[in-house]
């Protein structure tokens, strides 16, 4: 587990939001390595629709922060080609719900060029995309489709839940020799600040983080759902004396099976919280993995607290769709009381 931001103090750190930490992470990597280029729709002059690439165009110029035509398949296909020349493209998909035109390029090529060429060619690239609901966005702007990409061998899938991790995971992703889908929880882009070191650092792509230690139940989550899970845990600690352990997976593929199962062996009970629809979601993979690795420790059915098996509703109903603290608390109690 990496050190947490609270250990970083003084002039060597800045108080940043998650989106600012991503901007800072891109800046840091681009300053260190001329081969790192950012490309996508509105990432240049406009600094990105969420300002994740703010000031990069001014700092690094139009050949390294590139406003492309509006074409996701073009952006990703071109990035695969750029990567063959020794460059490290960091393409942005403006919203996860707009990634689908690029799906063929991602799954048929970015994910497979290494195996297709028997290791001769590879695609070191980081595809950034804001994902998830809760910001009153229009239709198609609130999707959580991480399972599509977790299902694809050859891709790594990462989702930070804190500013410190955002910068460190982004650095590790850019340094990684394989393609990484970097999913940014836009609900918490500006939710809080924490100390983020100015110096370069990595957060490992193979370690989940224990955000809260507990003994009664293991709650597995990631991204924007980490916070309501922590709130639920604090509430239940005070109201019912339930001591929940909260595991932030951080890297969704490959999963840190050791941290997942070690926690379960301690608690014997598990809940998984994700925004994505329940059926075929990553929760199913985690639950099955726990059963494969630690069945004898299981004391209750594994609970999934997830989005509905329905399209994300428009914003008047999104609070009911997303796993709120109230749903998480209820699910934890059901599992602990079993």
């Amino acid at each position, binding site marked *: 587990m990496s050190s947490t931001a609270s250990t970083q103090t003084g002039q060597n750190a800045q108080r940043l939001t998650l989106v600012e930490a991503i901007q800072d992470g891109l800046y840091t990597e681009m300053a260190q390595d001329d081969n790192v280029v950012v490309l996508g*729709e*509105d990432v*240049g*002059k*406009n*600094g990105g*629709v969420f300002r994740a690439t703010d000031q990069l165009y001014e700092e690094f110029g139009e050949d390294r922060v590139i*406003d*492309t*035509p*509006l*074409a*996701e*398949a*073009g952006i990703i296909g071109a990035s695969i080609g750029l990567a063959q020349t020794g460059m490290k493209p960091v393409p942005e998909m403006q919203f996860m*719900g*707009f990634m*689908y*035109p690029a799906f063929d390029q991602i799954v048929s090529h970015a994910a497979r060029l290494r195996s297709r060429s028997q290791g001769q060619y590879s695609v070191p690239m980081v595809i950034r995309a804001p994902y998830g609901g*809760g910001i*009153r*966005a*229009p*239709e*198609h*702007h609130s999707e959580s489709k991480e399972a599509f990409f977790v299902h694809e061998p050859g891709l790594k899938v990462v989702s930070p839940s804190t500013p410190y991790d955002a910068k460190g995971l982004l650095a590790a992703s850019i340094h990684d020799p394989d393609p990484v889908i970097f999913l940014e929880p836009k*609900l*918490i882009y500006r*939710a*809080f600040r924490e100390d983020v070191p100015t110096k370069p650092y990595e957060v490992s792509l193979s370690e989940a983080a224990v955000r809260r230690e507990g003994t009664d139940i293991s709650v597995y989550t990631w991204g*924007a759902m980490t*916070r*309501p899970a922590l709130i639920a845990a604090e509430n239940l600690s005070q109201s019912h004396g339930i001591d929940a352990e909260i595991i932030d997976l951080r890297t969704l593929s490959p999963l840190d099976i050791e941290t997942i199962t070690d926690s379960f062996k301690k608690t014997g009970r598990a809940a998984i919280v994700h925004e994505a629809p*329940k*059926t075929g979601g990553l929760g199913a993979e985690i639950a099955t993995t726990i059963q494969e690795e630690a069945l004898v420790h299981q004391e209750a059915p594994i609970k999934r607290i997830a989005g*509905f*098996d*329905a*399209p994300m*509703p*428009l*914003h*008047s*109903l*999104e*609070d*009911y*769709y*997303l796993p*709120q*603290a*109230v*749903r998480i608390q*209820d699910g934890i109690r059901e599992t602990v009381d079993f």
Partner: protein
Amino acid sequence: MNMKNEAGNTDLPAPVRQDSDLVQVLDAEGNVLPQASVPPLSDRQLLELYETIKLARHFDQRAISFQRQGRLATYAPMTGQEGSQVATSLALAEQDWLFPTYREHAAKYAHGMELESLFEPLRGYREGYAIPEDVNVMPEYIPIATQVPQAMGMAWGHKLQGKTDTAVLCHLGDGATSEGDFHEGLNFAGVFDVPAVFVCNNNQWAISVPREQQTASETIAEKAQAYGIDGVRVDGLDPLAVYKVASEALEKARNPDPGERRPTLIESVQYRFGAHTTADDPSVYRDESEEEAWRDRDPVDRIEKYLYNEGILDSALESEIQDRIEQEVSEAIETAEQTETSPDNIVEHVYDEVPARLEEQRDELNRLREKYDDGAFSEVLE
């Protein structure tokens, strides 16, 4: 000041290409150009065109102001583009179909949708997407250019069923011309020769990316050549010119002359006077003086001036129309603000019948709502 070129056209602001093929009827002041042919519209039709454009402008202003008050979520303004939207829709016959994007509020209204249903999705209610049976409008398209092959397919279906009296009109933006779906859709349209008209609302900006960075083509209309179909370029701030071009394209879609292909790509040359959406700040990426040059060609002013010149409109009628549209928009807002929904709606209409597993999920939600009350669900997640 607007310069007239050899064809009698008035020049569009730089950097838009000037060419004699640009169809115009009105000059920037609303006077009929010397060599222009005015579409044969009755006084009643001209007033309908005018009133609908005025209503669209008012709708836009109210929607932007409501968004700022937090009464609407993200809204895509259409000021500057409403003249083209209304003119293309009024050129449609009732049986024709409209494929709008998220910015074609006025086009939808002018082809039969109720105003309140336009406000409802902006307030977060999917109920506004329930289009009445007698209105031939598809729900707005948000993923860029995805409507193009679908519009082609609907037109194809009509043709295969011998219903070529029904045309399909499909809107798209200048950014959409970079997507694969645009090329695939137009290629199919040419190959299968379907009764469809594609209107590219070239408003010069795809969020922050200017038209000249979107494509190395000189014009968007010229892309039609690659698919063997006609491409027409029209002054999109000139409602009469747009009406003329759209009517002719729709007529050709239904009844082509021998040797003519049915589909047309219309490049409606416009300008996005406002932001991409209320979440966007254009001052970050474009110069405000650019907008001012286009403001001189405002479609509302041009059609208004034309109607005054023709003696069809006077100040008494203008204020009567203004009062009427203000009342209509206010009533629509009032109705939309009374819309209610239920969390049960989340599981409705996903399939023809709600699957058992989804019913369980709904029942579980309702059990929690009863146990903890609805307030517990609206706690801010942050």
